[in-house]
């Protein structure tokens, strides 16, 4: 084929342009540290990158949710533990006073009034500005002592001001863990055959004040059932804690894997990119050198 000056020149320009483009691409990859700098670099890869990123963001949120759930369970547990201990103290005092004197019973009644208030406080405890045991009515104290009509302690009644709501935590895609927030089964369960701890304590205190041995011993017995009630609630929380921890562990193991996949998809292997850059530079320089040798000589320079 007849090759003219223009053929060679156009050819060289085309190759140089193409090589410049490749050099530019490599440079971009090295400078940004990413293999995929625009969707067209690797469309399927870009799609996967978006998926991985969303997964990681979701997992981080789940981890936060689980952490808050565990903390809430912890706080509930600490509260109930204290209530349990207090009830034990009350029961010990009650047992002591079965054989006590009138004066000691009066003293006991006074100190038990403080314990009563303390248990009431525990039942009304808050976590993060929300009441723990009111169901959905987290801005309303669950238990209030109705003292408008009362003149003596035996007229105090406890009202439950919350509802039967619970608390859901999202721990995975479309998966929630539910925690009880209803204070009634814990403290006030007379309606479904359980113990109303406050009423029992009130009756115990009244019994002590009235020096009523029979009442004291009946209430002691009921107190024991109350303690069991609380302990049952505590052990019902154990599987929930277990579920939270298992899910947490799962995410702890799963997340690094997704992060790895994302890195593989997205991040440039700098070493490899630099090596490729060098070989492209070499090719570019060869083209330039060849071009110089081909373009320059012409018959003109040889004619006398």
């Amino acid at each position, binding site marked *: 084929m007849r090759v003219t000056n223009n053929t060679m020149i156009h050819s060289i320009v085309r190759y140089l342009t193409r090589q410049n483009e490749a050099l530019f691409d490599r440079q971009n990859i090295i400078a940004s540290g990413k293999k995929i700098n625009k969707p067209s670099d690797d469309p399927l890869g870009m799609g996967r990158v978006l998926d991985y990123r*969303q997964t990681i963001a979701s997992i981080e949120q789940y981890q936060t949710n689980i952490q808050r759930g565990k903390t809430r369970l912890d706080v509930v547990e600490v509260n109930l533990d204290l209530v349990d201990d207090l009830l034990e103290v009350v029961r010990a005092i009650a047992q002591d006073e079965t054989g006590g004197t009138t004066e000691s019973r009066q003293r006991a009644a006074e100190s038990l009034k403080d314990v009563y208030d303390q248990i009431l406080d525990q039942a009304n405890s808050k976590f993060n500005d929300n009441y723990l045991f009111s169901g959905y009515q987290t801005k309303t104290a669950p238990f209030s002592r109705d003292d408008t009509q009362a003149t003596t302690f035996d007229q105090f009644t406890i009202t439950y001001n919350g509802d039967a709501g619970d608390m859901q935590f*999202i721990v995975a895609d479309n998966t929630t863990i539910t925690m009880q927030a209803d204070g009634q089964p814990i403290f006030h369960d007379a309606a479904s055959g359980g113990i109303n701890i406050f009423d029992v304590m009130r009756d115990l205190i009244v019994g002590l004040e009235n020096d009523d041995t029979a009442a004291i011993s009946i209430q002691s017995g009921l107190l024991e059932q109350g303690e069991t009630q609380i302990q049952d609630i505590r052990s019902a929380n154990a599987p929930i804690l277990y579920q939270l921890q298992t899910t947490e562990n799962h995410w702890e193991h799963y997340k690094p894997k997704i992060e790895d996949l994302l890195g593989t998809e997205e991040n440039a292997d700098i070493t490899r990119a630099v090596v490729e850059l060098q070989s492209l530079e070499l090719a570019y320089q060869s083209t330039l050198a060849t071009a110089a040798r081909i373009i320059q000589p012409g018959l003109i320079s040889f004619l006398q």
Partner: protein
Amino acid sequence: MSDLNAIMSIGGQALITHQQAISVTSHNIANVNTPGYSRQELAMSTNVPSDSEIGPMGNGVSPDAIERIYDRFINAQINNESQELGRWDAQKNAVESLEMIFNETYGYGLSEAMSEYWNAWQALTINPAGSAERQVLVTRAQILTSTFNKLDSDLTLSQQDLDLTIQGTITDINRLSAQLADLNQKIVASEIGTQNANDYRDRRDLVLKELSELIDLNAFEDANGNVSVLNASGRPLVSATASWQLSTELNVVSGLQDVVWLDDDGNSVNINNDISGGKLKGWLEARDVLIPGFLNRLDALAQTLVTEVNNLHQTGFDLNGIAGEVFFDGTGTAADIEVNANIVGDPGLIAASFDPLPFPSAPGDNRNAVEIAKLQHQLLMSGNTATFNDYYSSLVRDVGNEVLKSDSYYTHQSEMVAQLDNYRESISGVSLDEEMINLIKFQNAYAAAAKLVSTADEMMQTVLQMV
């Protein structure tokens, strides 16, 4: 005597002929870098021999014509392939600028905005009455809607930019058509007789090639030397010395410019859908098919998001125990999606709870927020086969694929046109080495012819001295 005169005249004619040959060579050398130039050659032939007793005697050389070395079929092929080249070049450029709009490389695009939005709902479930959580949700929702708005407006702006480009291209096409008609006239005028209007023809080929890059066309030369150009839908652009104009007309439905052809009476004929090649096709394809496709998908995403969230939100109850309003305002397109201004003003209106009755409100009830948060991973798009993020990431993937596709077609076409150009160059291109040799060749012949003239002159002198 007459023989001596014959010798002198042969010498003289040879001088003139070779001088013309050098002149043609100099034209070639001067035009080595002129685009579209075909090298020319002086065709020489021997003169008619005259009779003599010993047989026909040659009468020297005379120039016949200046011929242009070219292959007409190559030009037709180049024009055809240039149409495809122009189309993919234009489409590639248009789509490359589109993929920048879906700015997902560093993670600040719609994908992250959606992800943050759903996470804000989840954060709300942990503390449904919390004002900080509610405020964050409102802010993230606003970021989401403004990302949608911006994507939509950037895509629409691209369409308008393409409008301007198309109008510019139409101006170019009209200019080239007029030039073609003008060149037709010049060529026919100079070719009366048997002469070749070589340079005009080169120019006309160049104009044709430029025109083929812009729009699809059929060109053919008639017996008179006129080139007629038809647009592929059969409407003439150039015929002999007449040219027809293209123009643009506003399409009220799309708000964009349609391409129209103006007929003899000045009526406009809409040829928007008839254009099938050239840069015009590339721009039109990007503007009228690709971008609307992406916009529709974006709108579908926004629509479903708005509908699903609003439905759940309206079945829920806010911090005051009142049923939820719509969470998103607007008609559900990416252009006008926005957060309900009432909710922006008072995040307490976010409906996180179910019906609180008999209580006035249920600040700790996060059940509606949970339901809304779960929307993130539900299969709500594409006939219930894809999540929101799946749908969006397949959109981004498709934009990337369009660029790759246009790029690969463009590369293939430009290789092909380059090959054809090389072939054309090998036939019609000027090689300086060749011209140098020709120069020497003709110069030697010129020197020899001059020697011939002086020899004949000396012979004449000798004869005269004999007298």
